[in-house]
């Protein structure tokens, strides 16, 4: 629990980056301006992208951006977990591995050799989400994160309340916007192969509102029906390969989405994501 001795005291917060594009950190900077109250509630004691201040004081709240992709990351992450009272995995990479985790679905060595002539000079392991190694208190999902969810989380953390976790699919939010269903009404992979029915909501259906099929960046909803989703895609004429690719774009390491990718790989997916007990 994060204790606040008096109401003037801000929550000491540190932001750490692992393997990612830094876009979610960048979104945090953007949210400073969008919600000036963030700066009233949180005291950023470490945030390399925003300030040259070094980490020289304890922190209570840790934001983790990015997936874990080097051996050194694992130790750093565990160290952060020991210090932080609450730990937030923010962004698709921290929550599910994100786009860099596509690498896990291919032969690791050949992927690396395509990029670097000498792979021995590069420190790299399979990409994993943060909860592969440490316990995560809160998730901010999506690529990039959503501002409304972010503010809900900050307010909840400061008030020491459980934040509102959305268990429903993107479809709920899409229907509330009166959108025409892209899955049923449109053609083509880019515009109609929509993962909305199995993807966790919270994005206010931003992609489908722009007539773009949901690509599942927020990961699986609670208890999704993956088998039916795969059947629907097949019914629309999409190949096993199309289906596998769609399920492995942003959150392929989640147990549920890797199930969807099995349509292509047969019974055995090459990688099973284990959650820390």
């Amino acid at each position, binding site marked *: 629990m994060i204790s606040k001795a008096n109401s003037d005291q801000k929550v000491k917060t540190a932001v750490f*980056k692992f*393997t*990612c*594009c*830094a*876009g*979610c*950190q*960048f*979104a945090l*900077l*953007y949210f400073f*301006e969008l919600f000036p109250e963030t*700066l009233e509630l949180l005291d950023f004691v470490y*945030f*390399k*992208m*925003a*300030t*040259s*201040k070094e980490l020289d004081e304890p922190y209570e709240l840790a934001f983790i951006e990015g997936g874990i*992709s*080097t051996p050194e*990351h694992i130790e750093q992450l565990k160290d952060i977990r020991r210090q932080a009272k609450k730990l937030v995995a923010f962004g698709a990479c921290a929550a599910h591995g*994100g*786009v*860099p985790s*596509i*690498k896990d*679905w*291919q032969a690791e060595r*050949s*992927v*690396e*050799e*395509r*990029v*670097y*002539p*000498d792979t021995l*000079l*590069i*420190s*790299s392991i399979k990409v994993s989400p943060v909860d592969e190694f440490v316990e995560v208190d809160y998730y901010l999902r999506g*690529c*990039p994160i959503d501002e409304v969810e972010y503010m809900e989380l900050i307010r909840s953390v400061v008030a020491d309340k459980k934040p509102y976790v959305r268990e429903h699919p993107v479809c709920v939010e899409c229907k509330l916007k009166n959108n025409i269903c892209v899955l049923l009404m449109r053609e083509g*992979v*880019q*515009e109609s192969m929509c993962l909305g029915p199995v993807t966790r909501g919270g994005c206010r259906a*931003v*992609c489908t*509102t*722009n*007539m*773009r099929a949901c*690509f599942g960046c927020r990961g699986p909803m609670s208890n999704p029906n993956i088998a039916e989703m795969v059947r629907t895609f097949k019914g629309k004429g999409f190949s096993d*390969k*199309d289906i596998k*690719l769609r399920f492995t*774009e942003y959150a392929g390491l989640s147990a549920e989405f890797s199930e969807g990718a099995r349509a292509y790989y047969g019974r055995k997916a090459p990688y099973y994501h284990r959650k820390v007990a």
Partner: protein
Amino acid sequence: MAEKRRITIGKSPRKQVKIDYLARTEGEAGIYALVSDGEVKELKFNIWEPARFFEGFLVGRMYYEVHDLVSRICGICPVSHMTTALRALEKATSVQISEQTRVLRRILARSQIIASHIIHLYMLAAPDYLGHPSILPVISEQPDVFKRFLRMKTAANSLTTVIGGRALHTMSAIFGGFTRIPDRKNLAIAADSLKNVKEDALETVRFIASLPIPDFYSKSIYVSLRGDGAYPVNEGHLVSTSGLDTTEDRYREHFEERQLSYTNSKYSTLDGKESFMVGALARINQNFDVLSDDAKAIASEVGFKIPNYNPYLNNLAQAIEIVDGIDDCINLIANFKLKDEKPAYNIKAGEGAAITEAPRGVLYHSYRVSKDGLIKKADIVTPTAHNAANIEKNLSLLLPTISNLSEKEITMRCEQLIRAYDPCFSCSVH
């Protein structure tokens, strides 16, 4: 890591610059330098951001998802990666796009370049010169500067949102065109909000020019696109101040990459030997004549002349580009008749390359696509990978000239120099 102590031998103090993790840049990098007797004994610019292997895992993916995936190379210039990949893939698969798509992509890319420059100037670069660790003290000490920053950024982001769907990681641009054509009315509103921040943009140029930017001259080779009568954004000839004039298809005949032992970013060289600079300064050095009238006027007002060899002044070049960018977007939107259209195409197997000007400079994407649309080969070179060798060269020339300063001041000068390049280390180790 154990801190090395400053050692003094005889009368010539050895001075050390050691930054493990450079703040206020995108991604992770450090520098280590040792100067003794006014000579650089050791210099390492170490980009230790973990590698992500985009060129590796894109192989085996489909042509239609690449632009989404590569936009995740960078959280600050996703649109540049997206538009470059789209054009390279469309060339590879012999797909024609409409003139409307071309113009919309130009406005989209330009709006993101403006936003990226604004953030870099105010949040990442300026705090050094104002003596702050971050922009946060500016909120209370110079509220008018902070408000100007917010107004400009909001205007640029709103234009990106109108066309792309949201400010960060846009989604309406797809292979072959756009999922939806922006609303005419919203586009006009976005253009109006740009008009409203034009004065702020001019003020930004004056503000950057007023900062105590160090006098440091290091003549580099400048490489940029050369536009056809307009400031280069998404297409053009590749030219350099050393006389290079080539097309994007022949890029690989001139530019090579090599891997170094101490950094995860590859270093680029031009014609096998020389380092070079890309980015706002390189663009403006080679395209000054096609800047808008107001951009030229403000440049002469603050005394900015080309050719300019001070890498620190890349910041001023960025500020001038913001003015030109605003004029360009307003102009394009005003003379633009939107019609409803949908992407329609058949793909062929092939190989294609595209070069665009990302906020930080020349960005190269090239793909080979099979007849089923599978990616067979991907090759991406980012602006910071282009600049990495030149940053190191600039540092090696800078250090002897400032070796009489204190270690703290030397460190600050080095940091400022690197920040002036607006490097994106996440991009460089894509």
